[in-house]
């Protein structure tokens, strides 16, 4: 059995590490030499944000926040797929 104080400190450490991981991903979304590098960095960015939301659910103990994660994952899927198909085919559909 783990005490609640240890769990709170653990959540804070995981949250800070994941927010720090956003910075190099944002740098690559701006810099990346080809358009695919930028696309892949933006996709990784939204995946990291979904992970941050999972930790926020544990901190606030409010399970309705996970719906925001599902919505962000769905919108990011559609957006990344549309831009990738636009680059490769010249049209979206």
């Amino acid at each position, binding site marked *: 059995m783990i005490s609640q104080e240890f*769990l709170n400190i653990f959540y804070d450490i995981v949250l800070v590490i994941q927010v720090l991981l956003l910075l190099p991903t944002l740098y690559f979304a701006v810099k990346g030499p080809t358009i*695919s590098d930028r696309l892949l*960095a933006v996709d*990784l960015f939204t*995946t990291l944000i979904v992970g941050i939301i*999972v*930790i926020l*659910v544990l901190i606030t103990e409010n399970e309705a926040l*996970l719906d925001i994660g599902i919505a962000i994952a769905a919108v990011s899927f559609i957006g990344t797929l549309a831009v990738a198909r636009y680059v*490769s085919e010249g049209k979206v559909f």
Partner: protein
Amino acid sequence: MELIGVALITIGLVFRIISVIGVIRFPDAFTRLHATGKAATVGLFGLLAGASFIMPALIWKALALGLFMLAAAPVVSHAIASAERSPHSVRE
């Protein structure tokens, strides 16, 4: 129960750190795609499984999100790889 959850969250976090390190150090877009797949599948699934072990009321939403990402990540990787292969991909 909390111990298993903390262990699974740590595994997911380690996979995400490895994924970002791979995106920084790999030379081109195809090898970077190999790195981002780690964060989208194992990283997120570890975090969701750990959160479900700590808060058991979360398990159905976590399962829905995890299965969606498990289906969506290969499709996105395939689309980005075919965008990189196409002649329209401009290098600045």
